[in-house]
């Protein structure tokens, strides 16, 4: 078992004829992901890496029965691509594109809600269920099938931690990079709930960052709703406070957002917080009684 994606997931690539789209289509296919099509307006009938190209997501879904999409279009067109996928009935949209304007993401949100679409990102590395399906730009070789779930706001730091987990013998059910933007799709709580309900996941690693209060909310959720152990790490503990926050930023989070407050919230929920990434595998093993 896993969350969100598995060997049956049918993926289309939005922006498949672009440099990044084509490159990662090849990587995803090589990993065994079932990439069934791609889109590029006006290029229907072409093929990229043996994958048929369609003019629209709607056409691609009709022809292939795709239920997931991954987006590699430039930032100015990303919100449009997400909405197109949502309207075409795609269940899971993964937006890799970075630098998407916040107002665009705010406009996307009610559309996703209306259609029940799940979004990962934007500005994220994607997600992977090891040995079954990889959607995005994650380096496949560091992942191993197992029983640990992982959610992270960052990219390379995730790889760093996954590498340590794998090296210490801890494989993963599904690893999700949710992205670090202010307004994005699925967040910690949504995914924690999925891991809680996934029989194969026995522990979860949560990699947070300073800013916002998603970690504090996650801590509350863990305390109230979760039976499975969670281990956390917070990046940015040394960052100077208030670097990018005006009054309103401090107000909206009611004073939270610092590393200390996040760590405090996790400790209150019996979630150990690793001092450095290297301590994470040990803490997971401790929780699992290994």
């Amino acid at each position: 078992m896993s969350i969100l994606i598995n060997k049956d997931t049918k993926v289309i690539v939005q922006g498949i004829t672009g440099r990044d789209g084509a490159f990662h289509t090849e990587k995803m296919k090589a990993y065994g992901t079932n990439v069934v099509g791609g889109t590029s307006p006006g290029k229907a009938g072409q093929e990229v890496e043996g994958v048929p190209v369609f003019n629209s997501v709607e056409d691609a879904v009709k022809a292939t029965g795709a239920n997931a999409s991954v987006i590699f279009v430039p930032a100015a067109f990303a919100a449009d691509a997400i909405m197109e996928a949502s309207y075409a009935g795609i269940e899971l949209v993964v937006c890799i594109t970075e630098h998407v304007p916040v107002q665009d993401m705010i406009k996307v949100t009610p559309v996703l809600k209306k259609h029940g679409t799940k979004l990962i990102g934007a500005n994220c590395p994607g997600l992977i269920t090891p040995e079954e399906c990889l959607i995005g730009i994650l380096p496949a070789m560091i992942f191993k099938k197992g029983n640990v779930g992982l959610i992270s706001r960052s990219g390379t730091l995730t790889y760093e931690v996954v590498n340590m987990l794998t090296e210490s013998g801890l494989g993963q059910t599904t690893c999700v990079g949710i992205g670090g933007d202010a307004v994005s799709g699925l967040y910690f709580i949504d995914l924690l709930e999925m891991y809680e309900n996934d029989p194969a996941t026995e522990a979860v690693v949560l990699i947070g960052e300073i800013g916002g209060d998603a970690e504090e909310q996650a801590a509350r959720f863990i305390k109230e709703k979760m039976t499975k152990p969670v281990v956390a790490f917070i990046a940015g503990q040394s960052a100077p406070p208030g670097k990018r926050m005006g009054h309103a930023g401090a107000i909206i989070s009611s004073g939270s957002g610092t590393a200390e407050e996040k760590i405090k919230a996790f400790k209150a929920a019996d979630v150990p917080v690793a001092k450095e990434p290297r301590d994470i595998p040990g803490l997971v093993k401790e929780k699992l009684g290994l």
Partner: protein
Amino acid sequence: MKIHEYQARNLFRKYGIPVPEGVVCHTVDEVKQNVSDKDKLRVIKAQVHVGGRGKAGGVKLANTKAEAVEKAEQILGMEIKGITVEKVLVADAVDIEKEFYVGLINDRNSKSVTLMASAEGGVEIEEVAKVSPEKIIKMPIDPSMGLMPWQARKIAIQLFSDPKEIRQCANILVKLYRLYIETDSSLAEINPLVLTPDKQVLAIDGKMNFDDNALYRQKEILSMREADKDELKEIEANAKGLSYIKLDGNIGCMVNGAGLAMATMDMIKLYGGEPANFLDIGGSSNPQKVVDAMNILLSDQNVKSVMINIFGGITRCDDVARGLVIALDQIKTNVPIVIRLSGTNAKEGLEIIKQTGLPVVETMREAAQTAIELSKK
């Protein structure tokens, strides 16, 4: 992107939000020329991108024109939190009966623009938010509908009681929302919004930030950019595809990925050092990027050692190593460097780096410890 108070006031005026008369001046002569001869109460305010200017002496009152000139002379050129004041706003001071706070922000939780308002306006608003958050009214705005007049009135009624005042406030809120959306703002505050004894509702001080990711479609906003020295460095880095923030320590770090860059800074601090910067070079092995990054790093005179921390994912470590070798060959520096490579093809990468004779290590912890040692030599 930040703008100054006087620029926010100009935008307010453009969108029909009432603000008292004022003029921005770069020199004392400009104050003499541009401020009317009439003696009246004015406020002279330093225009800098940092908070707490009032406490630092950057805001002063003047009763006459002569006094305004004198106060402007005191403020121009003064340092506030390390930033030299290059311009002042000379604005008419108004009598205040009551102060309020209104603001718009992109809220992560509701995933919407959220309107905030409080009857406890003024400089202590952050304290109000902390101590009595219930005194701050919050309203998420539906993006497909925008801020409707009835919603603006719903907020205004909680701040004012007189129908004329409620109408003025609601009007200001609707206009502020339009300004916010049309300029891809990420923060728009009026603090304080005031009620004068003659029952006028006015914006006295304004603060606006803009979404950097949307500047490509906001040419007019972009043309308002007046960056200070540290911000200029950050902008220069952005133009080269790097993300740089200067800090106060002496250990420079260069990392691929923002999360890992933060974790690297944390590691330096954890082992007793102080990071000199945050620097994310992104996911490419392009040698030019490394050269650019090193040049920015080393332009900071405080840097005593450099830690390069790369985790190879899709970008393989051996490619990164080749890029580093080319880059390091071009950079002539006496600042000691330690390199840490891990991930895809790390072994091959480490072999390549060893040819340069620079210290290479396999873990972040060793890299941090080595960088700290090197910084002390």
